């Protein structure tokens, strides 16, 4: 079993995903962090607030009374010219959504770790991707991470990505609630000076506090301007497909940590059958792929880092010619296919029919339901039978 970046034992620390992200925040040293605690994000900010209190980094933490206010304060600080981060989860993100759209439209490069958690109700604090999917069309870039190491590394990269002049959009770094936020694993941090040099200084484009060059921000648009601004926003989002690999390359140069591309392809090249996942399930899926390979099955994994913008062309190329693909969704779009499935279907539709794999959709792991190797093995086995009907299936739910 391989990891894209393997923490070296002699340099690794035992850190929860939340701690790893908090260290990234300390090294980034944002000017302003407005925040409201919500499970399972809370330990990220707890750890970070402790570091600020200990004088290990110079950040203005604003304790607000709700996530709506957290994102509002983040937008205000961001347009003023500050480097801003916040963090949230689940209902907190749901409450932020209104302002997250505004942050994206005002082109605020706010970086936000998201401790993925189910949406109410029933009230549930455990992991799934319903919250991330809620923000799917908000205009925020979305990165998914498999483990604490990736959550740390991508938080640093997210700053460069968000602040690139071609992008200037909020970036959400997803890490699975509890599975990553609260689980301790080996994580190798960068030396502070390396991390700081990589993120560099933020130079805002239109700082509101620049009285020598006054601007109006967040104004009103009539039908004659709104559409143009949305087109700009969409092009910036599409531009991420270009900037993201550049940031990865810069990170590799600065740190030797070699993340490459929009996704990790694990034993995929010569596979006939593939599974597509987001987040920590990818690790479990790698174990399953290894096991099934040992049994002689030609299976592989595609783990997406970048979900927004969605790299349709690259995904189509990666899955071209496979016989069948299982798309694993940890969220429902009630009455439709899973949100990841619809993207994969859209990506593959352009392939010539002979090269277009059969597609299957599996919903799994809602509300923290444990994701076992058996479930993934079941998905990868079922799709090998060409008579398996193309309907969405629930894995691990009582029938």
């Amino acid at each position: 079993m391989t990891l894209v970046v393997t923490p070296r034992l002699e340099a690794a620390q035992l850190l929860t995903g939340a701690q790893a992200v908090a260290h990234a925040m300390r090294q980034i040293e944002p000017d302003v962090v407005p925040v409201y605690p919500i499970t399972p994000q809370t330990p990220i900010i707890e750890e970070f607030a402790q570091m600020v209190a200990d004088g290990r980094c110079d950040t203005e933490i604003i304790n607000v009374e709700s996530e709506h206010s957290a994102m509002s304060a983040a937008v205000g600080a961001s347009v003023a010219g500050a480097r801003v981060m916040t963090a949230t989860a689940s209902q907190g993100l749901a409450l932020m959504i209104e302002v997250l759209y505004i942050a994206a439209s005002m082109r605020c490069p706010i970086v936000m770790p998201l401790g993925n958690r189910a949406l109410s109700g029933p009230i549930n604090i455990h992991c799934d991707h319903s919250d991330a999917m809620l923000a799917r069309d908000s205009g925020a870039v979305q990165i998914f991470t498999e483990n604490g190491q990736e959550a740390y590394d991508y938080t640093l990269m997210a700053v460069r990505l968000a602040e690139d002049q071609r992008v200037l959009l909020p970036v959400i770094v997803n890490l699975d609630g509890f599975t990553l936020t609260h689980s301790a694993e080996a994580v190798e941090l960068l030396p502070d000076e390396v991390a700081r040099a990589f993120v560099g200084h933020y130079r805002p484009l239109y700082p509101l506090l620049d009285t020598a060059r006054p601007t109006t921000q967040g104004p009103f648009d009539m039908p004659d301007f709104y559409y143009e601004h949305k087109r700009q926003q969409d092009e910036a989002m599409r531009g991420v497909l270009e900037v993201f690999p550049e940031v990865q390359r810069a990170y590799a140069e600065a740190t030797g940590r070699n993340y490459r591309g929009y996704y990790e392809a694990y034993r995929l090249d010569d596979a006939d059958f593939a599974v597509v996942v987001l987040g920590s399930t990818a690790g479990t899926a790698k174990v399953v792929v290894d096991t099934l390979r040992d049994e002689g099955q030609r299976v592989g994994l595609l783990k997406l880092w970048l979900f927004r913008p969605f790299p349709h062309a690259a995904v189509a190329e990666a899955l071209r010619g496979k016989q069948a693909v299982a798309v694993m969704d940890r969220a429902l779009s009630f009455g439709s296919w899973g949100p990841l499935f619809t993207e994969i279907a859209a990506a593959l539709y352009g392939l010539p029919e002979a090269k277009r794999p059969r597609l299957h959709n599996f919903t799994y792991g809602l509300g923290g339901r444990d994701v076992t190797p058996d479930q993934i093995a079941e998905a990868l086995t079922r799709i090998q039978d060409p008579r398996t009907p193309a309907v969405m299936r629930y894995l691990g739910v009582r029938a």
Partner: protein
Amino acid sequence: MLEIRWHGRGGQGAITVSKILALAALRSGKYAQAFPEYGPERSGAPVRAYNRLDDRPIVLHSGVYTPHRVAVLDETLLEAEDVCEGLAPDGVLVINTTRPPEAIREQTGYPGRIVCVDAAAIAEETGSRFANVPLLGALASTLDFIQLPTLEGALQAFLGKRRPEVVKANLEALRRGYHETVALEAVAPETLPPRPRSEGSRALPPYYALPIGGVITPEIRWFPKTGGWRNERPVFNEALCVNCLLCWAHCPEPAIVVHDRLMEGFNYDYCKGCGICVAMCPTGALTMVPEGAAELVAASVSPNPR
């Protein structure tokens, strides 16, 4: 299909009369649409309303670009907007004005039929208060398929259970508007002197030329000019000004001109006439006057004494 465009200012009732006209058309055996072009809620800003009238069901839901009638509720809009945009030479321009149609032709260069009505005076004299109802009467007089009694019925339906004197005043205003028009017939367009094409607010920049995020920078202040929203303007009496700059600090637009910490006056391209500066001024150096009044009016008594 007959298309109509109404020009008014927020609060003048353009949208209401477009609906009354649509109801009258329905009752006259025509299919009808009435729809507004709303902006933000802003009293005094230019607003438009539209009608479509036809013998057949109307399925079109796009904007009106080539109206057969244009009705203008407020003469000052002739400065702010190209009210004749898209109006064919065989159409009719109906306008609330005290001036003769010849003057309107000279100002607008419109060669078609021009119908003038002093709707403001009619509204005043009848006590109906708003110029929209007499203007509706004037516009309806140019449509042969709507009879005055049908129009009266539609107006009554809209007035509902208002006090009888209000209903009476409005019906009177409608009738007078219908009858008291002064018209000028169409002429061949070539007989009019050529006019420079107005730049027009529609010449807008491409998407990539806009600053991102909706930011308005000093360089692009030219495009969202808000001066056209105004029907009252603030004026400045330098003698009373103590340069406290409260007006500058509270003006929501880049409309107060300050140099070297001295208040210098207004940039009327952006002053939308909200009056906040006047309310803020502690010395009475600022006062609001109706648009078009002589500039040298200045208050000597502060509305906001300290």
